[in-house]
């Protein structure tokens, strides 16, 4: 590689490893097989606020299937075949048993769609360390920090990334005084923690904080209750809600004592994928998914799609199905993945988190895309979201 420096620009030329596939030969050649397992467990439908959004049983798996189709279209030209085997554990089943009996000895690549409470015990199994796990079910920052593991990649953006994305937008809008409303579940507290971290990071002020208590009375009379609940001593610009299961957050908009926008887990949300997104070729994948699934793509589907595509991209580029080669490639600087969001995606070498933009979406409109213009970073603006290298608590040698 040769470097030529100009006063204002540098151009780098390099000769790439070149792969040309002769179509006719490829068809005759034996195929290289890459087997991928997908592990999830059936879930009980959560308590629903309304019948507007039906419970989706197969979040994630259809995304993985779409990814396999795309990989295999490429594979037709490169002599590689990708297979997806799905393991859907019944509600009363044990995922670790399924992993030990049916997955660990036969697969090297495992996509896991399980909550944090189940992912950690699974990834702690000694046999799991021989695989590469693609987590498409958790947003926990602890799994990306203190509890990080070298054999686990995280596809969904963490809570910290989401909170930072919203904070950047609120900073741009100069909504600097926040009223934080936290739900009763442990996940809500984790989301609120991420919001508090972002407030500190972007020098915003949480002027009031309240916990929403579920009482049957309050639920029935949300109209009157929210008005009382949303009165605070100090004035606020925006109500930030932490309600991951969606048990009350939708009640807040239009019912607050003073007219204020709602942002967080409801109202304006930060998400890796949304049905309102159509730029950068997103329309194409939205169409392909809708045609296949008969529903819109959810963020778990998007993450599972990206996980399968990451394996496909690494296998195509390295012309290999070996775990060590693919893993090295995925963590290398040359690895880039298209996520239909206008910026090349890659994995953060310090915690295995997928580096990605976040869509700030209202139910029927895409409001902004984070990183918001003006939030700068010496390497990539994507690293303004979540735990950057100097902030990470992840130490790989565990």
């Amino acid at each position, binding site marked *: 590689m040769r470097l*030529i420096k100009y006063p*204002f*620009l*540098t*151009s*780098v*030329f*390099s*000769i*790439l490893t*070149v*792969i*040309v*596939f*002769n*179509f*006719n030969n490829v068809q005759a050649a034996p195929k290289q097989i890459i087997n991928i397992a997908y592990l999830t467990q059936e879930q009980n439908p959560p308590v629903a606020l309304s019948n507007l959004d039906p419970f989706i049983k197969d979040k994630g798996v259809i995304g993985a299937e779409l990814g396999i189709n*795309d990989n295999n*279209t*490429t594979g037709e*030209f*490169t002599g590689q075949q990708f297979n997806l085997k799905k393991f859907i554990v019944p509600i009363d089943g044990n995922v670790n048993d399924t992993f030990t009996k049916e997955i660990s000895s036969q697969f090297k690549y495992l996509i896991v769609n399980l909550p944090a409470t189940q992912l950690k015990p699974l990834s702690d199994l000694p046999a799991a360390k021989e695989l590469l796990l693609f987590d498409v079910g958790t947003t926990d920052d602890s799994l990306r920090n203190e509890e990080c593991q070298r054999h686990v990649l995280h596809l969904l953006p963490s809570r910290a990334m989401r909170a930072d994305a919203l904070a950047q937008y609120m900073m741009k809008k100069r909504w600097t005084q926040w009223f934080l409303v936290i739900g009763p579940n442990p996940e809500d507290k984790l989301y609120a923690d991420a919001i508090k971290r972002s407030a500190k990071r972007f020098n915003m002020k949480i002027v009031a904080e309240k916990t929403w208590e579920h009482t049957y009375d309050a639920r029935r009379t949300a109209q009157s209750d929210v008005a009382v609940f949303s009165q605070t001593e100090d004035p606020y610009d925006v109500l930030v809600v932490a309600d991951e299961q969606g048990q009350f957050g939708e009640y807040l908009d239009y019912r607050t004592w003073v007219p204020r926008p709602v942002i967080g887990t409801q109202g304006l949300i930060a998400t890796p994928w949304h049905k309102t997104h159509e730029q950068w*070729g997103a329309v*194409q994948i939205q*169409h*392909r998914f809708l045609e296949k699934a008969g529903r819109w793509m959810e963020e778990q589907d998007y993450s599972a799609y990206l996980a399968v*595509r990451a394996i496909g*991209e690494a296998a*195509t*580029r390295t012309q290999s199905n070996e775990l060590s080669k693919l893993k090295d490639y995925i963590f290398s600087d040359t690895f*880039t*993945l*298209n996520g239909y969001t*206008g*910026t*090349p995606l890659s994995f953060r070498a310090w915690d295995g988190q997928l580096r990605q933009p976040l869509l700030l979406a209202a139910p029927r409109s895409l409001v902004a895309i984070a990183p918001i213009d003006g939030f700068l*970073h010496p*390497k*990539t*603006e*994507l690293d303004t979201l979540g735990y950057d290298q100097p902030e990470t608590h992840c130490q790989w040698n565990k």
Partner: protein
Amino acid sequence: MKYQSLKWLLALSLISTAHAENVFVTLEKDNALAIVNPIEGKLLKTVPVGQRPRGIALSPDNKYLYIATSDDNTIKIFDAETFKELGKLPSGKDPETFALNPAGDKMYVSNEDDSLVTVIDIKSKKVLKQIKVGVEPEGITVSPDNKWLISVSETTNMVHWIDTKTNAIVANTLVDARPRAANFTPDSQQLWVTSEMAGTLLIIDSQSKQIIKTVNFDVSGITNDKIQPVGVIIDKDRNKGYVALGPANRVAVINAKTYEVEKVLLVGQRVWNLAFSPDQKRLYTTNGTSNDISLIDLETQTVTKSIGVGTYPWGVAAKP
């Protein structure tokens, strides 16, 4: 004498009006075509053409204008003087980009949703063949010697080499992430391909189908992930190539012999497609999000003018 010169003047002005160069720009969100006089730097008029117009091309004799109206699922044929619609071509679903062969009697269309390239006989308006290619075919071009049809698949990251005689894929070249546009050098010896996600320009030898150079771009003050090359075009003498750098809002000037990036020119926002003036003295760029086109004088290599044309200018073609 006076009368004589007046007559001359009149004749001259008549000639110049009749032969005035026109630049045609499709406006994706306005469902319209903008017609620009590049000499005066003026938007002359805007005419409705159909839903979500994107790809655009002139027939080799400059009589017909082809426009892909994506949401009408067709490619429309217009009279290039009167802009009257003359007919429709069976492009398949959601046509975006297409290419004509040098004779102008065949059209090749990328069908992104179905991973297909549709081959159309223009005279009979019939589909001759559909060729299965990689996921999300985008860039499409025919070599000037009419030997190769090139289809570039964005998600499969491949350049497909299709023999124009048999309409079959003969070879595939794996390229950098999310390849967008491809164009041959006028001598057909090289194919230049841009990769949007990797931020690179790949120069491929038509004989060996191997990448002989990877050109990277560096623009001071802009992070690498904003450099997303799209449109690419090479001049007739193979002296210089030009690459639109998307959200970097620049056009790069590349020495086509040494492959050095000689200059980057600041144009409008999210620049994506490029076209030469017929005499190749000027370059026109469509700037997607700033709703204008930029005029670049190629002798001085400076941007001379921006002209507001309408919402989301997409494709551009120039008629002498």
